[in-house]
């Protein structure tokens, strides 16, 4: 299929992009890597009036450090992420999840920010961002910037805190350095399929005790979710199969996953428990 006709803008700076978005009329779609947007447009499930293509906005691409944070430009591609030395050192959970996104060709085009702004609950990166308490830096009309925490960024199915006229500029995540173990445990039927359920876990050990735990759930509701009960059960607990298994049993608490041809809700909840156990065990080095 061929997308419906649209007006096209290809800004080279954030300011130009904001202007293009503002000038784009009622129905503007911001295109990052386009790897989800173009197929949807080809199927004519989306037919925006204007597409603002960010691929030439070079200032949005790249990873830098700022104190205890990693700052990831929204147009950093998945491939960039996988090659980045700062990510390799401080962003292993992001790297693990990114490796599972689609396939190499898609990862060459698809972007970190695009995947987050698309906010598909079956996407792999939203749950990671949520688990890491990422901060979303958003530029608005005129260039004003605001920062939204991940917990407030993912509003609903394919819906974020991004308002009309706004642009996701960068994502700040805490560096997870020494002492942290991570695991992205993804479950799908075939390799290139979207997650049926996945669990992002980061665990910091202090000796034989779990000092911190961050657990995000992919595709367990209309937004990515934190497995708060599991996190609370883990913190301060001994690192043992028993404690991890007991904690993971709470992974599906409060979730309302969908039923579709890959899985019905009760099975998704079961998977969340099993995969959380596996992810935490791996992250904790068990």
């Amino acid at each position, binding site marked *: 299929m061929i997308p419906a*006709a649209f007006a096209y803008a290809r800004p080279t700076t954030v300011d130009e992009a904001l202007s293009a978005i503002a000038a784009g009329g009622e129905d503007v779609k911001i295109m990052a890597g*386009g*790897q989800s947007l173009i197929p949807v447009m080809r199927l004519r499930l989306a037919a925006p009036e204007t597409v603002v293509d960010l691929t030439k906005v070079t200032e949005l691409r790249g990873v830098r450090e700022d104190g205890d944070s990693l700052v990831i430009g929204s147009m950093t591609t998945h491939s960039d992420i996988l090659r980045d030395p700062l990510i390799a050192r401080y962003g292993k959970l992001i790297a693990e999840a990114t490796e599972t996104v*689609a396939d*190499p060709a*898609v990862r060459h085009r698809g972007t970190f920010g695009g995947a987050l702004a698309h906010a598909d609950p079956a996407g792999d990166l939203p749950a990671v961002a949520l688990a890491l308490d990422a901060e979303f830096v958003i530029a608005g009309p005129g260039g004003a910037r605001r920062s939204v925490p991940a917990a407030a960024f993912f509003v609903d199915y394919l819906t974020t805190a991004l308002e009309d006229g706004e642009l996701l500029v960068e994502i700040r995540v805490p560096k997870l350095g020494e002492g942290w173990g991570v695991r992205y445990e993804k479950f799908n039927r075939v390799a*290139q399929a979207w997650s049926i359920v996945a669990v992002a876990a980061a665990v910091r050990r202090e000796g034989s005790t779990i000092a911190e735990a961050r657990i995000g759930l992919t595709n367990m509701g209309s937004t990515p979710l934190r497995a708060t009960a599991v996190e609370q059960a883990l913190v301060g607990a001994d690192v043992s199969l028993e404690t991890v298994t007991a904690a993971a049993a709470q992974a599906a608490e409060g979730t309302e996953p969908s039923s579709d041809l890959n899985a019905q809700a009760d099975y998704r909840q079961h998977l969340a428990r099993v995969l959380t156990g596996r992810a935490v065990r791996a992250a904790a080095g068990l």
Partner: protein
Amino acid sequence: MTQINVRVDGASYVDDVEPRTLLVHYLREQLGKVGTVVGCDTSNCGACTVHLDGESVKSCTVLAVQADGSEVTTIEGIADGATLHPMQKAFHEQHGLQCGYCTPGMIMASIDLLKNNPNPSEHEIREGIEGNLCRCTGYVNIVRAVQQAAGEMSSTTTGAQA
């Protein structure tokens, strides 16, 4: 219409395209590069894989306007005159194709794979081509072809081939 300048398989083109024109349709319909084919609507099958500035992309999921100022390499541009690219030769010698429809994309994805990982394991090869569907071969001979090409490319050159 937007004017684009693009190099494809070593030749320069200047064309007017609609923004909605997909790169694969531009290649096929405006440039006659029909070696690259379309197999799906959702970027699952990878039949349309080409290299954009040296990296594999699915040309059905890139707009032609996005290739402005870029270098595109298709299946038609990888042989050195009459000398096949080692990956093409390997697909032939290992019977890594039957109907041949997925083959252009599969070869382009495989070349990209070796560029990033010159000596992949079987698992890494399978992972590297997971975005390319083949309905004929069951993949066993494709994996063998990539293994053969990896061996030849690493033994006959020191990086020039990639």
